[in-house]
């Protein structure tokens, strides 16, 4: 029988589903029998879900414009460098 501490140590691999089937089955058994570990597992899973669901905000247009300007400049200097290299 796994202890809660052992369960917690494997939680990352358990949630990412990267464990070998035997260990996974043992963890599954523990979590179905231990209410505290079930809650920790469930709320950790929900934590990941809520973070994954966050859409990034658009980059402010003035920052975007600056970036494109810098890239254009870089493109020109890249071109010039190639020409002078020859």
């Amino acid at each position: 029988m796994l202890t809660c501490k052992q369960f917690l140590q494997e939680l990352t691999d358990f949630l990412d589903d990267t464990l070998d089937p035997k260990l996974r089955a043992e963890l599954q058994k523990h979590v179905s029998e231990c209410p505290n570990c079930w809650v920790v597992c469930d709320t950790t899973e929900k934590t990941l879900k809520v973070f994954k669901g966050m859409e990034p905000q658009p980059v402010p247009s003035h920052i975007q414009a600056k970036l494109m300007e810098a890239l254009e400049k870089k493109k020109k200097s890249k071109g010039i460098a190639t020409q002078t290299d020859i």
Partner: protein
Amino acid sequence: MSTSTTAPVFDEPALVARAKAGDMSAFSDLVQHYDRRIFRMAKQITQNDDDAEDVLQESFLKAYTHLDDFQGNSKFYTWLVRIAVNEALMKLRKRRSDRTVPLDEPIDTGEDEMVREIAVWDENPEETYSREELAQILDQAIQSLKPAYRTVFILRDIEELSIEETAEALSLSISAVKSRLLRARLQLREKLTRQFKRQGDDAFAYL
């Protein structure tokens, strides 16, 4: 009315190939596809808007300059994230060099701190809070993590790199990534539980 209303398909390898051949508009498409994710990651790591802006710009400039070095062994996005995370960490180190802890600080393994709050959540935080409120709660939670945990969490769980890609991007071993990730996830779970737990349902008092 246009003949086609569907959005153009984002074909990363084709855009990269065109950009490599000197097509600036293809590179612009790549920038526009990924800039918000790179900017968010830069803000989360550096926790500073000016630094994040620099990181965004320097990352794409570097990617553009070194595009020929990109061999296509990984996804372009993974390669870009690797560049950006290095830029962001450099900013962070510079900013922190005269104070606080280095990024490779020994990891705190205080087991007793791993789980304190044991309470189920309200059904859907996404429905209880507005997008802005939720974003603020999540940002604050991330900011409270130590940089060593924060960076691993951002790459693995927000940018969705694999464990191996995260390890490579941060020059860490797989086991270091896993142990930092576990602590980051548990610490965030702890913080969010304080925020999202079902009221009047503390712990398992009835058991």
